[in-house]
């Protein structure tokens, strides 16, 4: 009796030791991989910072591009990026969230919805230049909309729509079935269930998806170049607010524009080294813009988590 107990004890101990060793090996491998990845990333960022940080000044942010590297700035580029991102967010988030909610909560599950599901996921992997070509053919030529901020926002929203849709569906799917069942159980109809119970619980996940999408859009160059956005813009779009009624002005949507990645691309292709410094500085600013966007999302998520907890 006691003999067996002791032997069982030995076995257990050996088992624990094996598990410990496995944990250790996995931990070491994990840390090594992490170092390699982080090291690469850090080198890239550090290189950019060393090259560009010194060039960033108030004048750099408030000047238009110029033929003289020392006088050139990114004013039109960062304003363009900001406006294009606003349009992208305003189009992609409502459309993507709506489509995701519809597919998950309303659409009946059949062959058609399966086909749509597979295709939405595939769209997320289509090279961005394809979207650019589509926009060039459709928005710019067929609809004759020109190379405007609106078209830039449209093409980027098409690009990130699949990301937002997939994120929304996953956030909705992660909601425990008990919450759905009890929401329907109190007699709520689909709209009430979705609006009052599903959407609030899915919001943090949806937000993450939206920011991942926007972070991708902010750095995209290919589709914007494809639609023919200009690389040299020495003016700002009309202000969205005016001093006379109706105080709000949508003319800026139809204005030509450039964006940070294009400005960067343009400067890196110049032979002079001074322009390469400008490009690095633009890269640093673009990184900052992305980080700011992510920071805002983290803040929003934190606020939501405090009010909504499942």
């Amino acid at each position, binding site marked *: 009796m006691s003999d067996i107990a002791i032997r069982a004890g030995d076995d257990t101990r050996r088992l624990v030791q094996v598990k410990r060793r496995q944990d250790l090996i996995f931990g070491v491998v994990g840390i090594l991989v992490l170092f390699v990845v982080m090291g690469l990333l850090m080198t890239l960022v550090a290189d950019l910072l060393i090259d560009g940080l010194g060039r960033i000044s108030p004048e750099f942010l408030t000047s238009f591009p110029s033929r003289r590297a020392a006088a050139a700035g990114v004013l039109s580029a960062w304003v363009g990026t900001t406006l294009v991102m606003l349009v992208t967010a305003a189009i992609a988030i409502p459309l993507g969230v709506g489509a995701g909610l519809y597919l998950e909560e309303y659409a009946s599950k059949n062959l058609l919805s399966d086909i749509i599901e597979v295709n939405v996921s595939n769209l997320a992997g289509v090279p961005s230049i394809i979207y650019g070509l589509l926009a060039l053919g459709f928005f710019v030529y067929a609809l004759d909309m020109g190379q405007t901020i609106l078209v830039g926002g449209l093409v980027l929203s098409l690009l990130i729509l699949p990301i937002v849709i997939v994120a929304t569906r996953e956030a909705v799917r992660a909601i425990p079935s008990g919450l759905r*069942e009890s*929401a329907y159980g*109190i007699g709520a109809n689909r709209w009430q269930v979705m609006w009052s119970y599903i959407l609030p619980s899915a919001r943090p996940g949806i937000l993450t998806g939206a920011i991942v999408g926007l972070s991708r859009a902010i750095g995209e160059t290919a589709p914007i170049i494809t639609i023919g956005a200009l690389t040299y813009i020495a003016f700002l779009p009309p202000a969205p607010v005016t001093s006379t009624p109706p105080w709000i002005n949508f003319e800026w949507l139809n204005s030509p524009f450039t964006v940070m990645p294009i400005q960067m691309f343009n400067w890196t292709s110049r032979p002079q080294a001074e322009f390469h410094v400008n490009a690095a500085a633009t890269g640093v600013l673009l990184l900052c813009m992305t980080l700011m966007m992510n920071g805002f999302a983290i803040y929003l998520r934190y606020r939501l988590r405090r009010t909504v907890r499942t």
Partner: protein
Amino acid sequence: MNEALHIASPAVTTPTPLSPEATIRARVSNLDFWYSKFQALHSVSMPIHNNKVTAIIGPSGCGKSTLLRCFNRIHDLYPGARYEGAIELMPDGLNLVSRSVDPILVRLMVGMVFQKPNPFPKSIFENVASGLYVRGLRNRSEVEGRVEKALKQAAIWDEVQDRLKKPAYELSGGQQQRLCIARALAPEPKLLLLDEPTSALDPIATAKIESLIADLAHDVTVVIVTHNMGQAARISDQTAFMHMGKLIEFGETEQIFTNPTVDQTRDYITGRFG
């Protein structure tokens, strides 16, 4: 609520005239249920007595939850669910599982509490009021009155009355479950369904809920699924014993537990089953 019932009632059958103290609240007749291909209920027939507690017992997987969830059509949320037969809600004889009856109408009349406490991620007050809001009730003082009444019925008012604005997830498991009972009671349902409401709770919380269910039966008709023989014996008036999707025996709780007529029932309640 009653008007809604009359308007939506497609086929009004004459209810069986019964003495007031023995009225039938609902009648299950020849109910079959399929999860897609799998038939989970086979021709179940039983009455649900008005303002009484009906317990459904039976071994795991026998179809207790399946039967209970037919009463508020929660199966309709999943594709492939199919009902055959009837659950008639008296006195109008509205068939709750008929395809022509809107499941939302059914859920407006039948409240349900699930096994795992699942309060909404909202405040305590909003949780109980949610069923009222869904029914279009907006009058602040009426909502407040109904919430208070429901919380008192669910025996949790004393514990939450000074923190109604706090999030519901700050409550303990047992309190959350009573909150869910209050949430189901607030719209004054004709039937209250409870699916193993105490299986996730400790003995003290269980005792509280058991005594509250016994009190509830003065106002509401309760159908409860339970694994706990003692619980069924303590709180129910009628008991149904199920096995493999069939109703084996139905009767007064006392008779089922002291003098079952079917051997299978006897084996189960004496613990000699399977």
